[in-house]
């Protein structure tokens, strides 16, 4: 333990400075501090003033490094006394931590007198409590030999060390450095000097504080200026000048390179960002190897391991990541290679966040550096605990390669501040781009809307024009419509009239169809009936409804005249439907429902609508009766022809022979030929007369000269006429006359009576009697069979008067005249036919009897012309009785007389 002595008791040999000079010194120093803001200048002036004040060989200001080492930053040397230490560094071991603690906590000052091997310690504060001590005693004790040896090695025999403390921004004391005075010879340090040096140190502390404050202010101003420049580049320009802002950032932070990576997730505008993000770079850049099939290297920010590299837990970093040395990091090989290739050793990554939205990264790179340190003597690395004092303080220049640089807090803060502006700018630019895009879209919309408005205006104008045109058209159409309506009304009236007419016509047609005697039916193209009139149904033996809409060809079994049925497609009616030509047939057959057939005459005519065949109408009639009539006519003509030609043949042959003179030599034969010619001429005359007479009677009813006649007279007159013939034939005539008035043509009645009498005489054997009787009778008293036969006979002659009705009791009496003979009789089957023309019972006798075969026919015609009937009753072998009736004259008196 060193002996404690007062500094005052150990006044040094050198005379202490006067008070005035001390005050002047302090005043000058304070002025210097006030006048200058440059710490180096202040420190240089300080050491000079202090050395001048103390008169020592060397005064220096030693500044501690954070690791405990330090460096002489200001020095004032007396020439040729002690070597300069300015700029030299001293390892931390030279001033151990314990000593540094005492400097800091006790503000302990030390005074070493190497010669005396003593060290005087003068703390200002209590080491334990830190409170200010009441006294500033200097307590001496023996100096540590190593300390003394250390100082001696430096050539120092006396030293004074005063700590310089600095209140940092946390208001905590920090050992900033030391103010040391070295003297190469022994020298005592007075308490006053200590106090003065302490005051100087305090002033230096103030100056340091001021300087730090100034430095901080300047740094802050510079930082703000940098931020402002960057902000101006980012915010004030029309276009965000990211590249220039980045260059400013790199420059401000004095880094080797930097980059802004804007992540693809932030897509404010497709113009700003690519899908892979956008990269701005400046200076040295880590480059990943270019992947295959790509032309550009991939940014490190897109490296899949990059987020993991930035964050310990793999999550996205939210704060500044300052990596002073990349080497210790376990980077993926390609990333490590990218950084090492670019000689990047330090990395500062500022995530760009804006309102919790990750926009990208601001990355700053620093290369590894060479650190050259001037050491005050070479440290013996074999004595790490510095057990032995350094023997030499010869300047040792230490060069360290591949050193990394720590990122200063100010740098980090600046980078952080700039990062915020980048983030804000990127976000705002994104918004701007969005707004710009929206504006562009809006402008485009406005343009489009303007164009649309123009179009709309044009369309409106066109529409108005169209409306006008349409209105005009509508007016025209309206006028036309009114006209059409009127026309339609007129057409409707006409149609109604036409409909009424059509209805009337239809009714008329229906009546015509229903009234028509001919069968009429219509066909469609399939051969089915479209209408059938009642006559058709009646003729065919059906009801109308049974034939409606039926395939009538099959029903009527349309056949040819020989009975062979037509195939439908081969029938004439089908030909009408197909070809349209009218067909007229008179020999075909239709079949009735009962299975009987009848000859038919029909006309099939096509029905056309607008020149197109839509059907056919068939008009037919049963020609059975007509064929009978025609056959009868043919037969009549044939018979007449035969009857005329027969006598003509005889006449022509006989006269021809005579004319040839072939019989000139045969007078008998000539005579005979003449007789033949003559008799046949007579026969021919009678025949012609009868024929003409018959026709006259038949068609000349009005020629009857009817008058009231006495029946008896007529009968007697007839008998008288025939008496000669009867006598010749030796036949007796017996007459039973009756007094009755008749309304008849007397000549015709006499002709009838003589004819009948002639026949009776002609066919009576000699000695037979022909009886003529007359009686009044009512028609109903006649035998029915006879009378009905007469009625049927009458019915066949439609042009005759209607027959008397058998059951009509109101009919008046008639005169019944009978001529009875005793001839050979007439077979029953001939009783009716003998009244037909040329129906002689035995034609071979006609010539002999001189008959023409027309006598009974003439009689029947005469009787019928008088409204009477004629018939015959006969028994073969016994004779015949011819009856005929004549009307009585109603106004005449009725009476009978023999």
């Amino acid at each position: 333990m060193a002996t404690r002595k007062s500094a005052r008791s150990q006044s040094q040999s050198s005379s202490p400075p006067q008070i005035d000079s001390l005050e002047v010194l302090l005043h000058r120093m304070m002025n210097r501090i006030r006048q200058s803001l440059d710490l180096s200048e202040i420190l240089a002036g300080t050491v000079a003033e202090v050395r001048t004040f103390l008169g020592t060989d060397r005064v220096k200001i030693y500044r501690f490094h954070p690791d405990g080492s330090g460096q002489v930053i200001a020095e004032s040397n007396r020439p040729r006394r002690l070597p300069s230490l300015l700029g030299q560094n001293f390892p931390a071991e030279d001033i151990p931590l314990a000593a540094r603690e005492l400097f800091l906590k006790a503000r302990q000052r030390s005074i070493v007198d190497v010669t005396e091997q003593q060290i005087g310690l003068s703390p200002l504060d209590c080491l334990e409590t830190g409170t200010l001590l009441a006294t500033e005693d200097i307590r001496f004790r023996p100096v540590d030999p190593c300390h003394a040896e250390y100082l001696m090695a430096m050539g120092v025999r006396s030293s004074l060390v005063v700590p310089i403390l600095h209140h940092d921004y946390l208001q905590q004391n920090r050992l900033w450095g030391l103010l040391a005075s070295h003297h190469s010879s022994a020298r005592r340090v007075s308490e006053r000097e200590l106090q003065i040096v302490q005051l100087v140190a305090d002033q230096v502390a103030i100056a340091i504080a001021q300087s730090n404050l100034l430095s901080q202010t300047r740094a802050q101003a510079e930082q703000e200026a940098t931020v402002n420049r960057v902000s101006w580049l980012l915010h004030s320009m029309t276009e965000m000048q990211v590249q220039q802002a980045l260059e400013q950032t790199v420059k401000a932070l004095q880094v080797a390179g930097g980059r802004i990576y804007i992540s693809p997730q932030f897509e404010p505008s497709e113009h700003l960002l690519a899908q892979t993000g956008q990269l701005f770079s400046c200076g040295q850049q880590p480059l990943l190897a270019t992947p295959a099939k790509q032309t550009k290297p991939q940014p490190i920010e897109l490296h899949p391991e990059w987020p993991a590299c930035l964050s310990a837990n793999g999550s996205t970093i939210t704060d500044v990541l300052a990596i002073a040395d990349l080497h210790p990091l376990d980077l993926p090989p390609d990333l490590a290679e990218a950084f090492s290739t670019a000689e990047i050793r330090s990395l500062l990554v500022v995530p760009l966040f804006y309102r919790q939205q990750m926009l990208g990264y601001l990355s700053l790179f620093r290369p590894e550096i060479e650190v050259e340190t001037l050491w005050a003597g070479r440290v013996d690395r074999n004595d790490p605990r510095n057990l032995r004092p350094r023997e030499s303080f010869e300047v040792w220049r230490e060069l360290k390669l591949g050193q990394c640089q720590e990122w200063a807090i100010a740098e980090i803060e600046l980078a952080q501040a700039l990062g915020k502006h980048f983030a804000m700018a990127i976000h705002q630019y994104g918004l701007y781009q969005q707004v710009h895009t929206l504006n562009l879209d809006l402008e485009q919309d406005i343009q489009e809307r303007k164009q649309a408005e123009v179009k709309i205006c044009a369309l409106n104008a066109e529409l108005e024009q169209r409306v006008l045109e349409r209105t005009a058209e509508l007016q025209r159409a309206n006028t036309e419509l009114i006209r059409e309506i009127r026309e339609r009304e007129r057409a409707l009236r006409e149609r109604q009239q036409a409909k009424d007419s059509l209805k009337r016509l239809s009714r008329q047609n229906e009546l015509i169809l229903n009234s028509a005697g001919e069968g009429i039916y219509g066909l469609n193209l399939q051969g089915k009936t479209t209408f059938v009139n009642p006559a058709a149904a009646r003729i065919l033996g059906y009801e109308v409804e049974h034939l409606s809409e039926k395939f009538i060809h099959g029903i009527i079994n349309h056949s040819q005249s020989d009975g062979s049925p037509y195939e439908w497609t081969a029938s004439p009616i089908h030909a009408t439907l197909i070809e349209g030509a009218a067909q007229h047939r008179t020999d075909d057959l239709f079949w009735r429902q009962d299975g009987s057939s009848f000859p038919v005459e029909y006309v099939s005519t096509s029905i056309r609508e607008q020149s197109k065949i839509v059907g056919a109408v068939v008009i037919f009639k049963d020609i059975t009766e007509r064929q009978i009539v025609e056959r009868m006519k043919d037969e009549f003509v044939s018979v007449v022809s035969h009857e005329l030609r027969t006598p003509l043949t005889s006449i022509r042959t006989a006269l021809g022979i005579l004319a040839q003179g072939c019989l000139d030599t045969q007078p008998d034969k000539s005579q005979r030929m003449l007789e033949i010619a003559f008799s046949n001429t007579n026969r021919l005359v009678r025949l012609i007369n009868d024929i003409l007479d018959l026709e006259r009677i038949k068609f000349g009813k009005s020629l009857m000269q009817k008058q009231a006649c006495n029946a008896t007279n007529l009968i007697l007159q007839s008998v008288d006429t025939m008496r000669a013939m009867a006598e010749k034939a030796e036949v007796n005539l017996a007459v039973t006359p009756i007094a009755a008035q008749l309304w008849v043509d007397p000549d015709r009645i006499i002709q009838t009576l003589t004819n009948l009498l002639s026949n009776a005489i002609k066919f009576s054997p000699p000695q037979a009697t022909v009886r003529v009787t007359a009686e009044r009778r009512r028609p109903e008293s006649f035998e029915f069979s006879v009378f009905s036969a007469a009625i049927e006979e009458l019915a066949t002659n439609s042009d005759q008067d209607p027959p008397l009705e058998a059951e009509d009791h109101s009919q008046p009496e008639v005169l019944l005249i009978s001529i009875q003979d005793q001839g050979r009789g007439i077979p029953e089957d001939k009783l009716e036919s003998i009244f037909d023309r040329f129906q002689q019972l035995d034609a071979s006798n006609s010539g002999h009897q001189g008959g023409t075969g027309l006598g009974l026919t003439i009689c029947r015609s005469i009787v019928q012309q008088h409204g009477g009937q004629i018939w015959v009753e006969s028994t073969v072998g016994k004779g015949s009785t011819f009856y005929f009736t004549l009307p009585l004259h109603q106004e005449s008196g009725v009476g009978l007389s023999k």
Partner: protein
Amino acid sequence: MTIRRILIIDDEDDIREATQVCLEVTGEWEVLTASSGHEGLLKATAEHPDAILLDVMMPGMDGISTFQELQTNPATQDIPVILLTAKTQSAEQRQFTQLKVAAIITKPYDPFSLSLQVTQALS
């Protein structure tokens, strides 16, 4: 010269007589006559004339029936038959032409050419 014989069958006495005279004096025919079909059949069978002049419209057996009988009779079927008829209707003529007769002569015939017509018919 062989005398030719011809049988006239006709119910009309005057025609039969006049025709006989005509053929005899103009064609030197030997004429046989019959007044009915039955009689004509008998004479034809019995006499086998060179030709038969046959009337059509006759009471009883008419000329058509007589011709058919002649045709069915082997003894007479080879005798040429000439119809001598007053039936001149076209339908009647068509009916006659369907028969295998030698000729059809209509009444009243030309007495000057009757013999020639018969001769031609037979040839």
